[in-house]
């Protein structure tokens, strides 16, 4: 009984962390059809911002939830202005340019922070379930992911801003005719996407040792989750994250962490072969 609670928590945590690491990429891809391969490095920078801020004496939650997203969002803004905006509509070129950016950021981080593993301790104590101890921080990650998903739904569905954003993504010419500058909206969207990546990186930082190349561990998973999710932003994210998270944890518990990872990847290949447009192209058509 206790064990099943532990496994359930680990599964929820796996799903939540997939949602977190994919959300930034999902926003940018879902809204702008830009695949940001520097997404992992945005997360890495979120982690470094958090560690630096905590080192300067800032409260860890302020650093994770406010400073890191803001700083990384601003970096994203600069990137959008300098590089991405010249490449809208050229999917493959943006992938290549952002891949270049990712290498660039890895190099920069190596020069600034060195290649040594750094990290901070988790701010939340352990948790007891019957005879078992669980990492209390898992619950924090789950809560952040849930809040994030709800916030995304609310912003996109019920606010004027979300309406304008969605409209621009579908028909930029009409939005422009109605007086909304698509250029501005793309910029704002990229800012939000980068901030989400920064947030994810910051929130996950206490769990893992951070090195400049940490981003690489996330990008493939995030990429797979977003693509497998398909055209609908939030529903796609949740459905594919749940599927992969559960598959991963089942095999991790049954065999080993490596098999968990491999099972996740294999299920992605099978899924894409069966549903080449992603999960939501078939099941949640037209939903957000």
């Amino acid at each position, binding site marked *: 009984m206790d064990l099943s609670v532990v496994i359930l928590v680990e599964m929820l945590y796996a799903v939540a962390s997939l949602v977190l690491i994919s959300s930034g990429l999902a926003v940018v891809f879902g809204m702008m059809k830009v695949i940001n391969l520097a997404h992992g490095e945005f997360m890495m920078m979120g982690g470094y911002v958090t560690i630096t801020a905590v080192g300067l004496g800032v409260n860890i939650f302020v650093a994770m939830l406010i400073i890191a997203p803001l700083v990384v969002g601003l970096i994203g803004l600069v990137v959008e202005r300098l*590089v991405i905006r010249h490449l809208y509509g050229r999917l*493959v070129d943006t992938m290549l340019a952002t891949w*270049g950016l990712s*290498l*660039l950021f890895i*190099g920069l981080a190596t020069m600034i922070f060195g290649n040594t593993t750094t990290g901070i301790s988790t701010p939340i104590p352990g948790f007891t379930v019957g005879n078992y101890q669980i990492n209390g921080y898992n619950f924090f990650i789950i809560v952040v992911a849930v809040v994030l998903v709800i916030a995304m739904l609310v912003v996109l569905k019920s606010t004027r801003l979300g309406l304008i954003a969605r409209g621009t993504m579908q028909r930029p010419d009409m939005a422009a005719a109605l007086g909304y500058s698509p250029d501005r909206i793309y910029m704002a969207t990229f800012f939000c996407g980068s901030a989400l990546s920064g947030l994810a990186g910051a929130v996950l930082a206490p769990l893992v040792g951070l090195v400049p190349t940490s981003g690489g561990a996330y990008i493939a998973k995030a990429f*797979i989750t977003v693509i497998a999710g398909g055209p609908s932003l939030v529903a796609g994210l949740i459905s594919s994250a749940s599927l992969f998270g559960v598959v991963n944890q089942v095999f991790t518990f049954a065999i080993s962490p490596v098999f968990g990872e491999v099972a996740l990847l294999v299920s*992605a290949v099978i899924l*894409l072969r069966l549903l*080449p447009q992603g999960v939501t192209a078939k099941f949640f058509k037209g939903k957000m």
Partner: protein
Amino acid sequence: MQGPWAKEGAVTLAVAVVLIWLAPLMISTYTLTILIIYGMLGFSLGLIWGFGGILCFGQAAFFGLGAYVYAIAAINFGESTWPMILAVLVPAGFALLLGAMMFYGRLGDVYLGVITLVVTLILFKFINSTAGPQYVIGKARLGGFNGIPGFQTLNVPGNPEAYIWGDAYYYVCAALLVIVYLLVTALLRSSFGRIALGIRENEVRMSLMGYDIAARKTVLFAIGAAIAGLAGALFANWGEIVTPGLFSLGQSAEIIIWCIVGGLGTRVGPILGAAGLAYLKFMLGQQSLIDNTLIMGLILVLFVLFLPKGVVPAVASLWKTSFGRRPFSRVHQARRMRNRGRGNG
């Protein structure tokens, strides 16, 4: 048809011989060998991407597979001829299966990218976790993270004691690259090659004309994989060790950068891009002022923004404007092909 092909072949051969003869005067043959191997690897992606429109994010998978197949087979056979042949055939066979799965499934550009990337990751994760004694193929331990060191390196066929290494190995690699280059040139001149170009330009049109798109793409994909596998086997011989790092995403990324910088839709572009950038990386590796990765990243970004066609086409068109002679004719198509992703996100 026969005329220009023979003439081009002869010119290629002459230029290649001069280059192969001159290059060791400038750079040590040990370094040159790896530049040639990378050139061949770049060429393999340049073929399927530049002439077939297949953007493969996992070319490193075939490279690594070739290297591992060679190492495993060399340990088991104790000589190098069959391992070299297997190192070409196994990646090609693997690519046939993978390609058939993808192309008959009518996957779009991005999805193709994801699948090839995921397959590379799976291979990496698998090979990386085979350190235990239970992972054995014949006499060869897979070794996991350690990789496989100490296998039989290239020998004169039929005589396992006569190793080919050093300068001789450089000439072998260079000759193989020239042979592969000429074979691919012949392939592109054949009807298969021209239909492949047609598919790259407009898939729907070609399928309405009655061509089996999926089959042709699959075969082209497998040919690219065979070349990458050969490069992998040569790499294994050069480094005398194979490690899971061969399958890494970083390796795949580099291959793509070589093609972009060199110039897609040309044959020499990816080769020169690979050799040039690998040499640049080698030179940069000897200084510690600026991080290597940073420079590679910067190069890629700048090229995508300012010179998306790559160096070779740019130089060719410069040549055209300054000398008025007819340059390589297909270069301008590279840009068009790469932007096919526009419609289907």
